[in-house]
């Protein structure tokens, strides 16, 4: 093995090690995106969220409210998806958390009552910030 080949091999080994480190960081990001369970990965301190909805007299949803969101989440984007028993999305609403006091809250109003509360099985939440 020539001296040049040894140098080239060493250089490649260093590149591969650093690329692996970069790839590991990328994988961590991706796994956070995909973890839709209740594990908290956000730095704004959310461990779980609870939503409630308001209905009209026909049982149609007219409002969705999410309360008790940590103050540290102010400025982040909250998305709430309503899903039926099969997990199919019935509707999705998004807002930027603002005007928080001791905690943040989001209220989606004027929803029209077109979605029956009886069909609602899941609230799915996503908080995205920068």
């Amino acid at each position: 093995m020539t001296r040049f080949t040894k140098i080239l091999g060493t250089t490649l080994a260093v590149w591969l090690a650093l690329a692996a480190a970069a790839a590991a960081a990328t994988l961590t990001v991706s796994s956070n995106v995909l973890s839709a369970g209740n594990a908290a990965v956000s730095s704004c301190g959310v461990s779980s969220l609870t939503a409630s909805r308001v209905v009209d007299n026909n049982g149609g949803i007219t409002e969705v409210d999410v309360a008790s969101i940590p103050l540290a989440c102010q400025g982040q984007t909250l998305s709430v998806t309503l899903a039926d028993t099969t997990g199919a999305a019935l509707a999705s609403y998004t807002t930027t958390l603002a005007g928080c006091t001791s905690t943040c809250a989001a209220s989606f109003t004027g929803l029209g009552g077109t979605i029956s509360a009886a069909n609602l099985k899941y609230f799915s939440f996503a908080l995205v910030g920068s």
Partner: protein
Amino acid sequence: MRRLRPTPARIALLLAATVVAGLGTAFATTLSASSSKLWGGQQTLTKSTCTLNTAADTWVDQASPTTTHASGDLSVSDRGGSVREALVTFDLSSCGLPTTAGADSATLTLDLTSSTRSNHTISVYPVYSSWSPSTLTWNGLSGLTVDPTPTTTFASSAGTKTVTVTAQVDAAIKSGALWGWVLVDTAGPGTATSTFASAENSTSSRRPSLTVSYER
């Protein structure tokens, strides 16, 4: 092309450049990761039904404005000088629902056992302030907060009457208080007196009931 000789200085320079460039790549990726804060979660709703058969009910009479009628069947009348109105409510707390729960549907069932006329209109108005069967009188009725718009109306013919009260019960779950409804004879030829089975009726199936399908 001129071939560079791999002197120790050149080797060291190449290795240093490689390390710096590689660290830069890794650090940039790390920055990208920490700049995007992400959280996802899901809330699964539990569906169930609660049926309340023990109503708190009474009726009040214009002709005896200071008398209570906490026991016996409920009387509703538009007879001049002796107007009668009936009130009924339920204790939602026995359903054990948190204030974050909600009603998917709610049905109030009443049994109109008899009426002197079947073509009068009975209107059902939501009540938004507290009252007690043991103390409410005709004079006390004016102190209650009653919705000016009826939830529904039905004819004064004998039989079972089902009233959809989803919105009011949903709101009551969230506020923690349900103050029920007042039944008023609001229209019809001549005068009529209608009788509804109360919580004290000897036939339990005729008593007022409230069925709530809820999520929590």
